[in-house]
């Protein structure tokens, strides 16, 4: 079985797959014990499975594991923990920006990349940055407030 070596949350990791086309999502969830990324559609449409690859948000449900060789993958578990959340996670907690929480992984990972590129975004920039991440519970305004809070801006009216 082919092996693929990459960095995962700052540490070396090895994945095995009989199929080089196997999406990263299943490797993370079933082989590497990281269930933060969620299966939402398998089509790259909703964003629930988002991880960062070399800092760029990627839909892990449609990203072949073979393309991860020598890349750096960050999952939501790599940002912080319930006891020590990172700034974006802490802002989501402060704003209670989750209901069921199924989309939250994708929202936080996409926001992470957005803030790395645009440290003080406007509401419109946040909306544009998250526009391809879907939320069904209707927590959108809290998510917008959380991203603004994480950027150090007062949680303005979304």
């Amino acid at each position, binding site marked *: 079985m082919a092996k693929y070596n990459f960095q995962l949350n700052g540490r070396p990791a090895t994945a095995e*797959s*009989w*199929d080089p086309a*196997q*999406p990263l999502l*299943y490797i993370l*969830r*079933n082989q590497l014990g*990281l*269930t*933060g*990324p*969620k*299966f*939402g*559609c*398998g*089509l790259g*449409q*909703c964003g*629930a499975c988002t991880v960062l690859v070399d800092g760029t948000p990627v839909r892990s449900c449609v990203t072949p594991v073979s393309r991860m060789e020598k890349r750096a993958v960050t*999952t*939501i*578990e790599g940002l*912080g*923990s*319930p006891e020590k*959340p990172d700034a974006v*996670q802490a802002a*989501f*907690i402060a704003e*209670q*920006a*989750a*209901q*069921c*929480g*199924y989309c*939250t*992984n994708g929202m*936080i990972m996409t926001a992470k990349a957005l803030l790395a590129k645009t440290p003080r975004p406007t509401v419109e920039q*946040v*909306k*544009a940055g*998250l*526009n*391809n*991440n*879907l*939320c*069904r*519970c*209707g*927590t*959108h*305004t*809290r998510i*917008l407030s959380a991203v603004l809070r994480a950027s150090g801006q007062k949680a303005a*009216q*979304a």
Partner: protein
Amino acid sequence: MPQVTSLSRRGLLRSTSALLVGFSLGVARAQSTLTATGKSLDPNEVDSFLAFAADGSVTIFTSKVDVGTGLRIALSQMVAEEIGVPVEKVSVVDGDTGLTPDHGGTGGSTGIPRGGVEIRRAAATAREALLRLAADRLHRPASELTLENGEVRPRSGGVGMALGTLIGGRRLSLKVDPQAPLHDPLSYKIVGKPILRPDVPAKCTGRRQYVHDVKLPGMLHARVVRPPAMGARLLNVDESSVSALPGVRVVRMESFLAVLSADEWAAIRAALELKTTWGEGEGLPGHEGLDRYVRTLPIEKEEVTINRGDAVAALASATTKLSATYTWPNQSHASLGPSCSVADVRADGSVTIWSSSQGTHGLRQALARQFSLNPARIRVIFADGSGSYGSNGNDDAAMEAFLLSRAVGLPVRLQWTRQEELGLDPKGPQQILEMRAAVEKSGGGARIAAWEAQMWVPASLPGPRPFLALDAAGIQQARGQNSGLLNQNADTPYASPHVRVVTHWTKTTPLRPSNLRAPGKIANVFATEGFTDEIAAAAEVDPIAFRLSGLNDPRAIEVVNRVAKMIAWKSRPSPNPRPGAGRGFAYARYKQSENYVAVAMEVEVDRTSGKVAVKRVCCAHDGGLIINPDGLRNQVEGNLLQTLSRALHEETKFDRSRVTSIDWVSYPILKFSEVPAVEVELVNHPELPPLGAGEAAAAPVAAALANAIFDASRIRLRSVPFTPERLIRVATPGHE
């Protein structure tokens, strides 16, 4: 007070802690406590709802589950307040049929007003018993003692006793006392506070365990292979087409077909690559012309649900009459995570199922009845899922996992695909409402002289909803039909001497129906409040002033006035003399007897492109006593935005053989770029019972939006969704 034996005491403690610990370690350990929880499940017993541990912590046990609504923290606050313990000391076990009493499934916004109130009664009973117990131990009359902050102590001061020392690990063995005195709401210190939900940190760090994350030793991943046409029979399967994939097993029960493998990706590929031959489907009418088709369906029952005065005669003799037909399409729960379940059916006859079903006890009963199993041998454990907003595909997934685990003798994780969730979840059914009213001008205003609503909705038929897998497998089953209380909120909430509401309950409906958030009420308020706006516009009066002239309930008037103030409403009739921008309003008293909700919004409409932009949504909400204002606000906001999505975008389309709205392109939902500013004001009534908040604010949203679109564009929409194509079609001269 009887002392329980050390054995059963350990059993109780183990059962609760093992559930939690075992779950995070991979669930397997919860299995060991399956047959020996030793815990009371009788909803008349205090011990069924509450357990006290030696460390002073309190565990709530309830069949009402938290599907992301914040129910757990709200229940914790109610119990902490009523007993007198810090809220951090209270936790909740929800929906585990082996540990929780069955006091109803989750739905209809009953979690707080029924579930919470029942648990609060148990907590009040427990508090009184604990005071009596402490009186014996402290040699003081109970009336001189108080239970606060987890400690019983004399009101006058002095040495107290911690709750853990007093009762920890023991049972109370008491019936719930419906007369147990409740704390005065004006003294509340925990209820009414915006306490943060304990599940959110784990959800924001990827640590929360969902049903999708349950893993058992030896577990196989399964995918179902569905027919290309609904109800088609399976003619042939070529197993060799997937034999090259690792560890794939094909399981077939007549036309129920699944592929399984220890490797999830192998199961996914097998489901895509398995060569099959299917017969013809059962046939569907198609979504085009559905409103005409529905009126030809056989009728189970005609019911006059409201009949005040003589609306028929008043309408016949009236000079100024209006009529309009409103329709609502089939819609999906559209859960962001497709349904999933894990089942472990053992050779010894024990059955354990992990599910995020909103009715775990009902699911257990359905399994027991269907397969003549001893219910005591079946345990359904609730695990967090993607928001379900009613009965989505969860129960079907659980049944499929059960069938497959039983067939292969191993634990099975069954995961639905996106296409299955949108295509096959039981749908919020289509609704048709025919509205008629007689209007009288009076002074500078107008009044509704007579009102009639006739609606077509699927009937409620007893028994569980049929499971897809049982039909496919050719297994006889009960054929219940239930999609919630579909016919409420169709009468006018405004004063009128003659009101009549008729429900035509149809025997069948094209797509399997179920309860979808605020069942029936969103469409009914869309019709009643859209039609009310039509009446106000025809009478050339301000829509809010018109409504206020027909209201006399102070709570109704308060939410209407509040929202008018929030949005700086200026009195004038609709439509806006300056088209392009507009405002709309709608009001409802949910289920005619619960929350008071008023919604106003501002929109921009481009008549050329048909595009609607919602700029701002304001809501005033009175749900009685507020338990957790932030949790409540979150629910209200979610209701507003989810219903905007349903009104703007959502319709389950289907052709003659299957549903064609099966992914986020063919079934679009609200995107961030469309999200308006949302403002919510909550009216608190500590002196009144708490009402549920999971649905009420959804009810007026579609109507307020349609009314705002009319105000901005003179385009009156009477069917959902409000797509650009529909706006252009309705705006075309000669339409209707």
